[in-house]
């Protein structure tokens, strides 16, 4: 749901906006959900190498129907292909790439981001669900540029960009930049700093749906 009265990017526009900041030659890990779509919008002429935690570097496009290899999947368990220059490896090597700082950028979804860069994206306060973390905690400690990509507010209108996270943390002080349907914000030593507003939005209106203060 859109925040009332604000201009919001749709998912495709948001993916395209993030994609602009993926440079040529980057090694990139795209999280499950919205981030998966970023690869479809990287500008022509840039060669980006996508990593998937389950043991492939060089994810290619989705295979044509009927040509899927059931043993060639990505972290979301979707069928994929191998791009030219790809490599397969086992899990401890895959996570050495993540934890060891070899991947340049990870784009992740989030429940909450705090002004000190804390990220919450693996568990809520609802204890009826079993917890599940996957590779999120390894990514955030190891990858130097952590981009979060999410709606600016929850469906009920409550803020996701906070002074402090209330959900269990994925990592402490790990987020570098947040891309939402309403704005792009950098995490700095002083808190969130405005990079840009979605066309037509005023800072005041965006600040009104953001718990943390947005510096300019």
């Amino acid at each position, binding site marked *: 749901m859109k925040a009332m009265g604000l201009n919001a990017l749709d998912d495709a526009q948001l993916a395209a906006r993030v994609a602009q900041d993926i440079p040529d030659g980057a090694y990139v890990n795209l999280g499950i959900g919205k981030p998966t779509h970023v690869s479809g919008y990287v500008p022509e002429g840039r060669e980006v190498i996508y990593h998937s935690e389950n043991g492939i570097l060089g994810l290619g496009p989705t295979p044509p129907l009927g040509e899927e290899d059931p*043993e060639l999947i990505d972290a979301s368990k979707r069928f994929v292909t191998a791009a030219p220059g790809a490599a397969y490896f*086992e899990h401890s090597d895959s996570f050495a790439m993540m*934890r060891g700082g070899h991947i340049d950028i990870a784009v992740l979804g989030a429940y909450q981001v705090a002004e000190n860069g804390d990220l919450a994206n693996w568990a809520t306060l609802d204890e009826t669900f079993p917890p599940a973390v996957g590779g999120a905690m390894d990514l955030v400690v190891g990858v130097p540029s952590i981009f979060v990509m999410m709606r600016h507010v929850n469906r009920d209108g409550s803020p996701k960009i906070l002074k402090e996270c209330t959900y269990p943390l994925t990592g402490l002080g790990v987020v570098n930049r947040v891309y939402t349907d309403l704005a792009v914000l950098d995490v700095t030593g002083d808190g969130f700093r405005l990079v840009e507003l979605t066309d037509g939005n005023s800072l005041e209106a965006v600040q009104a749906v953001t718990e943390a203060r947005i510096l300019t």
Partner: protein
Amino acid sequence: MDKSVENLATAVAPITDGATVMIGGFGSSGVPLGLIDALFEQGANGLTVISNNAGAAEVGIARLIKAGRVAKVICSYPRTPGSIWFEKRFEAGEIALEIVPQGTLAERIRAAGAGLGGFLTPTAYGTKLAEGKETRVIDGRGYVLEAPLPADFAIIRAECGDRWGNLRFHATARNFNPVMAMAAKNTIAEVRVLSEAALPPETVVTPGIFVQSVVEYGERP
């Protein structure tokens, strides 16, 4: 040296009640479905399963969980779409769960296989998953001390194997299979093709020293 065994039932026969069993795979890729079904038929009970996921629908690990044969799961991501049986047992308090971040899971398994006593990882530092664990700060960075995670058995899947136990994998079906082979006292590998000839030494991914038995199971997932 001939580590090949005739059929899946013979391969899983040594697995005892209460054993800790690593099961290879990620999602539906690289899961030793033939061995899991044979383990189902075999009847071992009260198992601790170490695997990335907790199975989906009614196949693989989910089949064992549905039948009440799994006492505990150690994994990173039990909530795959369709993991209804794990969720049911968990809500009913009928199954124990230890959540381990995926990279820490792989590294703990590797540490067991490599004879290490533990390692310091930045992963999960300051989070709920590090609660109760020893931590330290080195050069301003926080680390959690993690222990090796060994197993009595590993059941894994490979694309091709030979009688020496050497294995080769296909695409992303490699995943946890090689590290699990290192970490178990008894590693049982299901291979799509059991090669008469030795695998060329340059192409071997898991050397035979890590594998105790090999059984052919031609079906693809």
